[in-house]
């Protein structure tokens, strides 16, 4: 359970597993933070909330990660300790409510991940819960 950074020639790929869909979203997001920053500081940084809605499971994951990248740029923080819960509203609408601790970018040695991609994206249920694979554009 958790995430791992995977080999990808030009970009960064994250593979994550967790027991619930929400937890696997959070794990991918934590992987995203790790792809940007090797040493994430502990601390009492303010948490912020975000929520997204999309038409299917993969799309809501994509939009969630996109939103995190957006929040990172406009808030100037690295979103870490991500928590997410994912709900299927109906077959055509999924929502994700999430929160993250925002570590000021000035406090970390971080590199930029530019965008989330659909390339090779996987989001599937497994015996133990859920598995996600996401490639990010660096």
């Amino acid at each position: 359970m958790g995430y791992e950074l995977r080999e990808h020639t030009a970009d960064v790929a994250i593979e994550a597993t967790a027991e619930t869909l929400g937890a696997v979203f959070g794990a991918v997001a934590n992987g995203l933070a790790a792809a940007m920053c090797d040493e994430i500081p502990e601390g009492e940084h303010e948490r912020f909330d975000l929520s997204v809605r999309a038409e299917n499971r993969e799309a809501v994951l994509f939009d969630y990660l996109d939103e995190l990248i957006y929040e990172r740029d406009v808030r100037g923080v690295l979103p870490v300790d991500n928590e997410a819960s994912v709900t299927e509203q109906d077959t055509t609408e999924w929502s994700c409510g999430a929160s993250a601790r925002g570590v000021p970018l000035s406090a970390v040695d971080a590199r930029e991940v530019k965008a989330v991609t659909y390339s090779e994206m996987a989001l599937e249920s497994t015996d133990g819960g859920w598995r996600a694979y996401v490639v990010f554009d660096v």
Partner: protein
Amino acid sequence: MTTFDADGITLEKVRDYVWEIPAKGGMNAPARVLASESLLEEIQQDKTLQQLKNAAHLPGVRNHAICMPDGHQGYGFPVGGVAGIDAENGCISPGAVGYDINCLPGDIEVKLSFGRRAEIESLQEAFETEQATVAGEELTDSGIRLFTESGEKTVYEVETSTGERIEATTDHPFRTPDGMVDLAELEVGDGVEVQPFRGIEDETPEDFVVLTEEDFADTNPQLRRVLEKRDVLPLKSTDETFHRLLKIIGYHVGDGSLGGQEQMWFYGEPDDLERIREDIEKVGFKPSEIYTRDRNHDVDGNKFETTEYSFNTSSKAFRRLLIELGVPDGPKVSTGFTTPDYFDRLTDWQQALYFRAYFGAEMNAPAAQHDKNLYCPKVSQTRTAGTVEAGREFFEDLRAFFSRLGIETNGLEEFETESNADHDTVRLRLGIKNDSGNLIRFYSRVGYAYNHEKRRRAVKAIQYLKRKEREREHRTRIADEAKTLADGGTSVEKVKSEFDINGRFIERSIWSGRDGLPRPGEDFPGFEEFCDSVHVGSDLTITTEIESISEVGEKPVYDIGVEHEAHNFLADEFVVSNCGVRMMRTNLTYSDLQGREEELVENLFSNIPSGLGGGGVVQVGGDEIEAILERGMDWALEAGWAVEDDLAHCEDEGFRPEANAEKVSKKAKDRGGNQVGSLGSGNHFLEVQRVTDVFREDVGGAFGLETDQIVVLIHCGSRGLGHQVCTDYLRDIEQAHRGLLDRLPNKELAAAPAGSQLAEDYYGAMCAAINFAWVNRQLIMHRTRQVFERVFDRDWEAMEMDLLYDVAHNIAKKEAHTVEDGGERELFVHRKGATRAFPAGRPELPAAYRDVGQPIIIPGSMGAGSYVLRGGEQSLEETFGSTAHGAGRLMSRTQAKDEFWGEDVRDDLREQNEIYVKAQSGATIAEEAPGVYKDVDEVVRVSDALGIGDKVARTYPVCNIKG
């Protein structure tokens, strides 16, 4: 043949450095890899080749999908990929006007029985009882089996060369000369069959009783029973039988007669009579067989023979029924008949049933009056002097009917005619005005019933007139443009040469003008010639060409029970962002810098924002972001961050006029606000370099490059803003084409069909992001000038710090190129990690380089240096004018971090290579270590050998800063 087997993908060697993957499966063009064998070995190690093959699936890919020598795996399209995709019909060019009715937006009109039309959504309530018109062997009515609303779907408007428009989803099948084809599989230029008859808007008729038993009170009870048994008594205005009867009596008024005590005769062509017989049978009566009679005529001494066809009915009840409904009970000339007395209570479509049949019998068929003009369609009646008033009433009703439908008529003509033995007669004649628009309205809304030949001619007439009107509009535009050019001072001879039209036409447009629309050109066919050249099917369809297909957005769509299979979807633009590279010259030499490297790298690093959250050279607000997006480098000039000369040496002068800031989301603009003038991180960097080699002195001279000279290379893009634009449109496209996208090999290949609103929006947004990218690099360059001023204590002008060139290498641009068939096409050339490489002579190049070719800047890795090339002579033929963009990665970032330690890399570079590197993050240095890249020398060697980008100079790093 030499082949190269790359893990299941076989490449065939075309010639040195050119490898081809033949088009197989869903590939729309072969794919080519331009590489030496050693580079190919490296390229085949990741998914580059598979991604290249995937990209070749995009519809409209022309010539080849191409991988540059520095190609490597990306997302969707490989990095180092080039594709020229037809900007007009490489898109989804579905198309045209169809029949088989499914997945159509709610306001599409459906043809219904009895010449009506209705918007599809209005059928929701009544579909079980409605009859739609379908084209089988001939046009027939068919029940609607199923009606569902299918939610919102993306809808396309298809327009044909004769102006038919229809909106439909991509899985809507259209009839073509090759059978039913889904919209998704049709392209501009394809033939589709249309049935240009539109009919009259459906309207619920007033419900009243037309005939009751009382109308037949004087007849014997048996006759009434006959009628009752056939369910025509009482006859209501909403009965289907009534509508059939309206047609029958309309025809009879035109070409029928009474015979004996019981008979009703109908005259016409055998096939047409057959259709009338069918309607009579449906009402419940039995017509006779069709009789043939040869008749001898003698007109003014000319003797000739004709064959007359007819049939009759011999039911007294039927005869009485028709008379009650308005068939003249006696000689038409003298009975004083008018339109039926209940006529004013009927809807237009009901009246049209009567008139159409009457015209089928009586009105002249469409014919050329004079070459390209058609006769007025006319109907006439002869009346006795005593009953002429009734005739006038009849025509008055007809004129009113036309007028409600927007069809104009000439005044009613009256002629004294040869009187017969018994009475003086008057001939009344009404003609329909013969201007094109009016005739199109008449033929497509009313036209003829029963007479197949006239209906067929009417279809030809509609298509001919539409074509003619488009030709005239086209000529009007030319005339206007010619006049404008001439008014602007262009010589008449020059204006003539601009247009492919005869000179006299241009002269007349310029000098004397003309009243109204110009006539069609001499080459435009006459009506008869047109009729001979086209075929109208027995179901009254005619083939026309698809002229355009454009997306019109999401609309609720409705299905009317037709089974269909969804097919593949064509797509065109795929999503890219817009980083690029620029090089600035100086007049400093390496010796001027030696000993100052540390000071310079520190100054650059602290003054030029880089890394994550590092801000920008300037912080801008909303209005300024808009201005940057709309105006590009012009904004920088105005804001004091550029000089005129910078604009003159930038690709497109630093401005894409197609940019549309409105199409860039707020989210993207938010991200851009604090990143104007920032490097970002990853492979983006700023490098101070020294020129180590100049391979072509003449070109080097033109570029202002010489050995030992110091130059500055800046590699970055449109930052978060550009990425957000990509992401936003990727999602929009995904949603707009959901289901269809699933059939492309990779979701990242999401593409908006050219000509669609989404494609236009995306192109506008992407061009805006390119403007932003130029401004970004400009601000970094100008800040670099300021840093140099501080470090070297001289004005930047004195150090001749001038822009050599700025060129994007992640971009889609509309350009004209030669394609497979030798013709020239406008393409969206997608360069993803590939650099435009135009040779000398292309008009797009800045004046300074038009004679030598475009400068190409190929950044290498930190330890290997970079290259300046110029656009090669072969590039247009081989690669849509493109070459490589860098060294190309070999190793993943994660592996690089395992293999290298940032600080070690930095120290090694300084100690062994005299390269001073400073980065926000040690990990970035490890990820960008020289060893993770392909050999840039080999990449450039292949580019040079292929003649797509010629080696001009090589540079080597001195100072490097990155995120």
